[in-house]
């Protein structure tokens, strides 16, 4: 391998043949200045090519992919946050609505109860008054009936007394005398 190397060198670099021959046995390859120019030229070409590929095509391409992904993730997260906020708001609205409905129902219930209470109170009063009036009427009637009955009793008593006197004495007594006697007796 070393020989073939030497030959190649010899063919390629006429001016360096002698130096190469001297170098080849002992010189450490990294310090062999005869190949510096070749390496520098290829390095320059390769590195410039790499720099152009990297800066013009590769990095924008990969960076674009990464940015697109980042944007997508951020967009999705923002979307998720938005939806979560919306659902939170909906939940809050639902709870407020529910609380309102509850208090409304309470109010309506209370109102209805009071109304019904008031109505039944009024009805009860009316009924009581009606009953009281009826009671008073009935008492009056009883009183009238009693008075009538009492006056009838007097007439019957006077008639009975006249008839008794006629049966016992055989004379028809004076009606006035009988009446006053009955009155006095009734009073007594």
């Amino acid at each position, binding site marked *: 391998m070393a020989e073939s190397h030497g030959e190649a060198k010899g063919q*390629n670099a006429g001016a360096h043949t002698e130096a190469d021959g001297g170098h080849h046995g002992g010189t450490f390859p990294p310090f062999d200045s005869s190949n*510096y120019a*070749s*390496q520098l030229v*290829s390095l320059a070409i*390769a590195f410039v090519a*790499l720099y152009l590929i990297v*800066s013009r095509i*590769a990095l924008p391409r*990969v960076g674009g992919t990464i940015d697109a992904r980042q944007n997508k993730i951020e967009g999705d997260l923002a979307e998720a946050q938005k939806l979560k906020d919306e659902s939170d708001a909906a939940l809050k609205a639902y709870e407020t609505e529910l609380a309102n409905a509850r208090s409304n129902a309470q109010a309506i219930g209370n109102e209805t109860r009071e109304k019904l209470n008031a109505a039944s109170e009024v009805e009860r009063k009316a009924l009581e008054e009606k009953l009281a009036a009826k009671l008073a009427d009935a008492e009056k009637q009883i009183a009238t009936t009693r008075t009538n009955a009492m006056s009838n009793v007097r007439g019957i008593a006077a008639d009975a007394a006249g008839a008794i006197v006629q049966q016992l004495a055989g004379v028809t007594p004076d009606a006035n005398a009988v009446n006053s006697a009955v009155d006095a007796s009734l009073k007594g």
Partner: protein
Amino acid sequence: MKIDPIHQFNIEPLFTLGHIGNHTIAFTNSSLYMFIAVLLIALLMLASSRDLVPGRLQSVAEISYEFVASTVRGNAGAEGMKFFPLIFSLFMFICVSNLVGIIPYTFTISSHLIVTAALALLVFFTVLVYGLYKNGLKFFKIFVPSGVPLYILPLVMFIEVLSFFLRPVSHSVRLFANMLAGHIALKVFAGFVAMLGFSLGALGWFGGVLPLALTVALYALELLVAFLQAYVFAILTCIYLNDAIHPGH
């Protein structure tokens, strides 16, 4: 059987491209592996799909992107993202070529000082030029740390200037030496296995177990080093660029 741990670093010219002055410009095995690295990076970054939910290849591409991007942002700030393509290219180039390089029979580009020195000087001059362009003379504030007593300021400034100009040296030698030493160590230990096996017969087969185990362990270490050195190179680049963007500590 002769085992030469240095052989793997030989530069083999494949064909000649031309001449610049006295120098012959050849397409070498090193050039081949440079282009292989570029090709692999291009394949990784361009052939992967662009799905919302990434597959394996796409994940590797995106993880590389985000890894380097966060390194740049963390060490050089948001303004440093201007240099993101440069740092990404450096990191991927070194990382991919190092990873390719630890496959047996391949060549490791960064085991040659000239390559790492060229990359380090690229960073050094980028820092210098951008720092002067962006901040003008204020750039030299990086040599004058704030809150240093006046009587030791000249000394501190001297150290700062020296360390600034030594940066490309440490930057390049660190990568070069790590890759070189790692590959030599691997080759030496792997060579022991073969040498023992060939020279001592059955005894050597047993004796080869230990260096073989060490080779496996070293291989795992080298895998880590291949990535780590690329990362270190990239992060140092970020730190140096941070000086250019925000001088005056």
